[in-house]
């Protein structure tokens, strides 16, 4: 799991690459969101275009990130979901919880 980030128009965009799964990508995602929060970010976008799969721990980490950011008065949104990630978010009904966008530009404009 590789994790990079960049800033655009006041939004911190996190780019996970690979699998968000137990003991691996889930921890990396948690650290990346925490790092963004520590740096003062309140608008966080996770661009999932390069994520190949997410298991229950990975999905759980996205939920934890969402509640942490929201509880601090910020917003966390998702964009460019691969079909495999959309599938698990639909089954868990979390697709109704997250703000999900097809494109990064659309997501940034929504904050």
């Amino acid at each position, binding site marked *: 799991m590789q994790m990079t980030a960049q800033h655009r128009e006041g939004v911190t965009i996190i780019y996970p690459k690979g699998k968000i799964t137990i003991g691996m990508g889930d921890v990396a995602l948690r650290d990346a969101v925490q790092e963004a929060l520590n740096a003062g970010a309140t608008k966080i976008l996770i661009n999932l275009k390069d994520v190949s799969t997410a298991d229950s721990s990975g999905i759980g980490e996205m939920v934890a990130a969402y*509640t942490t950011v929201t509880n601090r008065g910020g917003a966390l949104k998702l964009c460019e979901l691969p079909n495999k990630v959309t599938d698990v978010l639909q089954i*868990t009904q*979390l697709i109704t919880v997250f703000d999900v966008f097809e494109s990064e530009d659309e997501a940034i404009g929504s904050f």
Partner: protein
Amino acid sequence: MTVPQPQVHVAIASRFENIELVQVAIEASLDILELDEKTAHRIGLAVREGVANAIKHGNREDPDKRVEVDCILARDQVIVRIEDEGDGFDPTDLPDPLRAENLLKPTGRGIFFMNEFMDEIDYTFGSDGGTIVTMKKTIAPSFKEVATREEE
């Protein structure tokens, strides 16, 4: 004459990074069946969750304890058997992750995924410890197999 069914066996120490080894072996074996991408991914995720549970809740992450995985590829069914050396648990005593009060909980979706992605799940608890989870998924015969049968 009985045609032998393709079968894969993987044994790992109870470390999360070893789940990757299991997934590579299972996904490679599923390639034989030429499943659609969504079905193959769902079976792969169910196996991941089963092995993760065996490591975490079964063997309590004790690397000296093993998890053994068998995958049998039948003509119309995938059967996956996951065995740990733990104390067992009650699979019926789990909260529903779709209930409003559980939706934002970060944990509690592993067995839910297994139930959603597979058709049948059976738990067997050994008298001396250890849990065996057997998951079954009915699949459509591959295009290649149908074509072969039609030629016959």
